[in-house]
């Protein structure tokens, strides 16, 4: 039962995105959407790519997806770099302040993003930082840090201390130990943390919609702005196709990285 509830909306929408509006929103008979009665009447085929053409070419959705790629890529890279260094330090320092930093990160994690955004807007306008992709990337990295730190911290705790301690005894500095001993064994944890930074950057609406100018918008805020303009022009299928297009990368992500996602979700939990 749950499986049906979980997956049916997706199948329905993907299927419907290849139809015309009259079928996808069919008042007369819901079976229209399956057989595509109106789609055949209007375009002559059972499936139509009109929605996709309209969204990607006419509305320039391709440039938004390009922006998404840039933002997501750099956010993931930067937050992983900062996160591994920080998480390693937190896992190996035995002092009291490490605990406090983790607690502080938890509080930061709980901050609603929109409250932070309302803090950024005014200074960013003043300093002319508003609207650019790099600004958004930095902001997303920072918002991501608390979670990345927690996850990598608990991951590094699982790597036996003896590994890097033996390197220290052999005369390595901490940085050398990190570089030669830890980096080669840390990839499973880093990939998991990377997946979650990816999801945060990709799924974010609050930050990207408030901090990016119209030309620089990523996919999600673009879809939101579709809703306003497209409804008036009766091109709701553009929005449906855009939504489906934005969904597909996520679909593959789950397909290929299911194990890492599950282990990441449970990693935080087991530590309590």
């Amino acid at each position: 039962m749950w499986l049906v509830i979980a997956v049916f909306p997706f199948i329905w929408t993907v299927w419907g995105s290849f139809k015309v509006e009259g079928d996808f929103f069919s008042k007369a008979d819901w079976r229209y959407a399956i057989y595509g009665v109106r789609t055949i009447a209007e375009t002559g085929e059972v499936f139509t790519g009109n929605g996709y053409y309209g969204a990607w070419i006419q509305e320039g959705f391709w440039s938004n997806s390009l922006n998404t790629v840039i933002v997501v890529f750099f956010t993931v890279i930067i937050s992983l770099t900062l996160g591994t260094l920080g998480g390693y330090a937190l896992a190996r320092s035995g002092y009291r302040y490490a605990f406090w930093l983790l607690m502080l990160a938890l509080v930061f994690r709980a901050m609603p993003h929109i409250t932070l955004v309302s803090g950024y807007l005014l200074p960013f306008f003043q300093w002319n930082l508003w609207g650019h992709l790099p600004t958004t990337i930095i902001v997303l990295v920072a918002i991501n840090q608390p979670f990345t730190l927690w996850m990598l911290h608990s991951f590094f705790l699982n790597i036996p201390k003896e590994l890097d301690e033996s390197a220290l005894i052999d005369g390595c500095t901490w940085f050398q130990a990190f570089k030669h001993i830890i980096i080669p064994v840390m990839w499973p944890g880093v990939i998991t943390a990377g997946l979650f930074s990816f999801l945060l950057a990709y799924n974010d609406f609050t930050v990207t919609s408030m901090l990016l100018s119209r030309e620089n918008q990523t996919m999600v805020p673009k879809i939101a702005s579709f809703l306003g303009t497209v409804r008036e022009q009766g091109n709701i299928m553009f929005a449906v196709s855009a939504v489906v297009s934005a969904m597909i990368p996520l679909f593959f992500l789950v397909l290929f990285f299911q194990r890492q996602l599950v282990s990441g979700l449970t990693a935080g939990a087991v530590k309590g």
Partner: protein
Amino acid sequence: MPHRTFIYFILPSLLSMILLIAVPVFSVIVQSFFVEHEQVLIEVENCNPFKCVKSLSVDQQAGAKLRQEAPLGRFNGINTYTNRNHLAFDEVALAWMESKSLVDFGAKLLNLPFYKALLFTLTYTFIVSPFVLIFGLAIALGVNGLPKFVKGPSIFVSLLPMIVTPLIGSLILFWMIDAKGILGSTLQLIFDDNNLSLKASMPLTWVMLIVYGIWHSTPFAFIVLYAGLQTVPQETLEAASIDGATRWERIRHVTVPHMVPLIIFITLMQLMDNFRVFEPIVGFSASAKATSLSWIIFNDLHGDSKLFGSAAASSIMTIIGVMILLMPVLIRSWKNFNIKLH
């Protein structure tokens, strides 16, 4: 690890958090005490061949200059907090005196934007979170009983609602429950009411958003609890069934107590995430019927007139709300930490 090395390692990460999380919070606090400049009015004399008329007009230049000199606006003290759009002390007091019953008073409170948003946010948080736990546990138990070769695919399917962008997920459901969409028209058929629309009434909109919330968050609880189920000691379960415990009794007395830490963890995450509910309101275009604290901040900042002061005041109150929610957890870990020390 020596302090010095620790600093080197943690500095980049810490710096980014301080600059972009801690400093903005302070900036929000400062902003909340200021309010936008009033428009500068000047008297202009418009003369036509017959007579001269004096009129007031907005001096754009002086306004722009003022904004440049003091971008924060003018100092307003705590007035933003107490005005009609936020805590609305005057209106609440008035409503309290005029109302004949508590219900009446409640209805009046709901007309004030801040209380309306607060009420929805709290309702959403405290209905969605327990349901997510219960459904998550039920599904975890269900999937655990499935044969091995269907477990993988069913986990894959279950992950989808959680992984998908919240805005996109809510749009997908929104199109389905549209009066012309599949669920909407089916409901109309069932209730035999052609004008039935989930979007038109306030209770139904709330129900819709809550259903979306449960749909979106249940996978998280499911995955965590499912992983927890794998660690339940089999011996205890067998011993219990030898002693004649039914399936339900085994769940109640063995499985659930074993997973208490996980349940606390999920509750904590759910409270944090549900409290900032925002995207579904945009996705469902539900802002006329249901607003959340995050939404009213967004609304202040969105569009041409950016009400920084007002948004900042709402932000501060939202942050205070988060703090209150988190307090039990912080106290608990503080106690644990002290126990570890002694």
